[in-house]
């Protein structure tokens, strides 16, 4: 039974729509004729329907903070979400630094103006703390891949759930210690491996120890480092959809990495109650753009790009993982929930996975020169 399609070769897509992007360049869609509507029909009511449905379902967001101890990760999370997610750990108070890297996850539900957000924060105490930090990124990669694995397992079931619980890490905030010089080898190694699996946002931690000039110089050097080593941090240039996105994201990219200060104590400044750090020479206000760039980070992560982070995780990183997994499932760092999908061959190479390849498989815009990896 043939479906007769009348392909009207009319004018291309309505000029009001955005320029060809990854979403409107649908390869399989038929050529369509734009139609003039003579009156109000009410199609835009679908936006409200979407909103209502989304508010009813709620949102999920999973964030991971990585960095050496003492850089203020837990404080930063508390400041970002204005609530006591973690108990800020005080160094040297009888809590020994863990000998191995352990990942701790904590989940909270926060609500604001009717919007419910289920937030999962994963901390990595012990990262980079040992004497020999070789392969310290493996547990982290394993954890991230394990989340992808769970989602994949749920997705390929015959009887699937209506809504698959999403525990995949949407964003990884990497804390760079404020040395003022360059990125350390550990940072570079870690960022190289991670930026291919997850969205990474590097920040300069404890930026109150740098003056403004030092901060700018440090930022430039870090940007140069990132460019030299080919590390693409969020927002990635290749996923810019159209000119508006490009402009917006270029502005953000100029300021990456943000120099942030975290604080969860309030002080009175000029009669206002602000979050800040009190020192002998003044109070550093966290939300003051002149003092630190915390508002930029907060806006990026929460107010403007949260959905984008999730979309890129779902459409790009997860798809890459899925492709790799379905093709060569034996070469991935394994988390505890790992299930062997394909029979492992006799000789298993070192678990380096996609991170070791110079141009790993990517979907939608990144280098397409890896047809040899297809099975």
């Amino acid at each position, binding site marked *: 039974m043939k479906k007769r399609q009348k392909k009207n070769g009319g004018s291309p897509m309505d000029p009001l729509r955005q320029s060809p992007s990854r979403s409107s360049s649908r390869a399989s869609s038929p050529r369509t004729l734009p139609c003039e509507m003579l009156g109000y029909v009410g199609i835009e009511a679908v936006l409200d329907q979407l909103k209502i449905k989304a508010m009813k379902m709620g949102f999920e967001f999973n964030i991971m903070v990585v960095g050496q101890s003492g850089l203020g990760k837990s404080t930063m999370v508390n400041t970002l979400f204005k*609530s006591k997610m973690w108990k800020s750990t005080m160094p040297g108070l009888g809590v020994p630094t863990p000998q191995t890297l352990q990942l701790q996850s904590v989940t*909270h539900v926060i609500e604001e103006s009717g919007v419910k957000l289920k937030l999962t924060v994963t901390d990595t105490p012990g990262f980079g703390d040992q004497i020999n930090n070789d392969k310290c990124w493996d547990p982290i990669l394993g954890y991230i891949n394990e989340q992808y694995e769970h989602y994949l397992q749920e997705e390929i079931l015959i009887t699937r759930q209506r809504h698959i619980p999403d525990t995949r890490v949407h964003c990884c905030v990497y804390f760079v210690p404020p040395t003022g010089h360059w990125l350390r080898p550990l940072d570079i190694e870690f960022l190289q491996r991670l930026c291919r699996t997850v969205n990474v946002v590097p920040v300069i931690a404890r930026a109150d120890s740098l003056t403004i000039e030092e901060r700018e110089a440090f930022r430039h050097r870090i940007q140069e480092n990132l460019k030299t080593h080919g590390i693409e941090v969020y927002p990635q240039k290749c996923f810019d959809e159209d000119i508006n996105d490009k402009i917006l994201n270029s502005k953000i990219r100029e300021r990456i990495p943000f120099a942030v200060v975290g604080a969860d104590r309030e002080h009175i400044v000029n009669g206002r109650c602000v979050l800040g750090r009190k020192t002998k020479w003044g109070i550093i206000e966290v939300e003051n753009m002149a003092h630190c760039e915390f508002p930029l980070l907060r806006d990026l992560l929460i*107010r403007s790009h949260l959905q984008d982070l999730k979309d890129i995780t779902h459409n790009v990183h997860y798809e890459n993982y899925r492709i790799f997994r379905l093709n060569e499932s034996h070469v991935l760092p394994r988390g505890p929930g790992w299930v062997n999908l394909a029979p492992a061959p006799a000789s298993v190479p070192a678990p380096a996975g996609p991170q070791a390849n110079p141009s790993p498989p990517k979907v939608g815009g990144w280098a397409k020169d890896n047809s040899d990896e297809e099975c």
Partner: protein
Amino acid sequence: MEAEANSGSPEDSWAFIQRPGEGCRTVPLAGHVGFDSLPDQLVNQSISQGFCFNILCVGETGLGKSTLMDTLFNTKFEGEPATHTQPGVQLQSNTYDLQESNVGLKLTIVSTVGFGDQINKEDSYRPIVEFIDAQFEAYLQEELKIRRLLHNYHDSRIHACLYFIAPTGHSLKSLDLVTMKKLDSKVNVIPIIAKSDAISKSELTKFKIKITSELVSNGVQIYQFPMDDEAVAEVNGTMNAHLPFAVIGSTEELKIGNKMVKVRQYPWGTVQVENEAHCDFVKLREMLIRVNMEDLREQTHSRHYELYRRCKLEEMGFKDTDPDSKPFSLQETYEAKRNEFLGELQKKEEEMRQMFVQRVKEKEAELKEAEKELHEKFDRLKKLHQDEKKKLEDKKKSLDDEVNAFKQRKTAAELLQSQGSQAGGSQTLKRDKEKKKTREEKSISDGTCTTPGKHPVVPCALVVCAV
């Protein structure tokens, strides 16, 4: 309706946020964080992606399907009215790009051509069901691919099926019942009474009641507007009571009062399409587009498509748990099937290769045979040639021998002659001559005479010996 969804818990709203036993606590916020812009972010994403909506219109020819679509979307879609002489039911699909403020909608309208026109209508529903299945299949294939582009994929699955009922005023036709029964598990079926200006109001209420009771008694599950969301529950509830909608479609406009209204003009009066007292068109538009479009799409994806996927995958032989009730990965069986398929391919390849080798061998043998024959012929000819040569050589040899013998005799004779001329003179000469003669005679009579020239001795014939 929701309860039939696969593993959807009753409190769907918080179903996944607060999973029982997970122990996530709600944390109070000390200030404004800003994630209340999340729905807006989501909406912006959807806007940039655009929306997709596919309607299937099923109904007999001449019930006003195209007119209704035109009226519903306030535009003139291209198309010609179909004739009644179609040999079978065919589906015609057209896609249009509609834009309203900043929302872009890709609307696909699929219409049945020739439905209900045949004499034997037993198989009329089949092309429709196959079409719907084909759309699901395409989506399933895309989803199962290794390298897939789901977020770019143009979703062609049918979101709503408008079933046009002829306004007889009595009851549903059996064709309608059969078709709707086949379609209700595959697509959201919304029955509507077409051309309802042919029925009076009192008849209409009776007709509607009759239709609903027939549908219920036959177990046809038509689409019920969702009632779980407080915002729209009330509206949807009242609308549900008015199903099936009695609609009129028209694109002609008339100025009534100070507005242009869509109407149908009769000598006895004018029917206004958008007048709620005249027909249910406004309700249909409200329900279909303004209130429930998203829900229709979601139902198609999460109920109908999942059902299709489950059936299809089970048919292909996959299970979720194997007989030992260990969680069985779909991918493992997929891998096994793929290996099987590859094995088959390899086997075929081997077969072909072997056949090829065999053919080559045969050809080679043939050529060798031919070559051998040629050689034999060559040998034979060579042999023949050699034989002849030998014969000739023998002949030559014998002639040579004769020459030699003659020469010897000649020298011997000359010697004797010289001796004879010295001593006995003529006697020996005579004797010699006689001897010679007898010898000559002998040789001549033998035939082995090698002396050239005439021999005068032999009386009978003149023998000329030539060498």
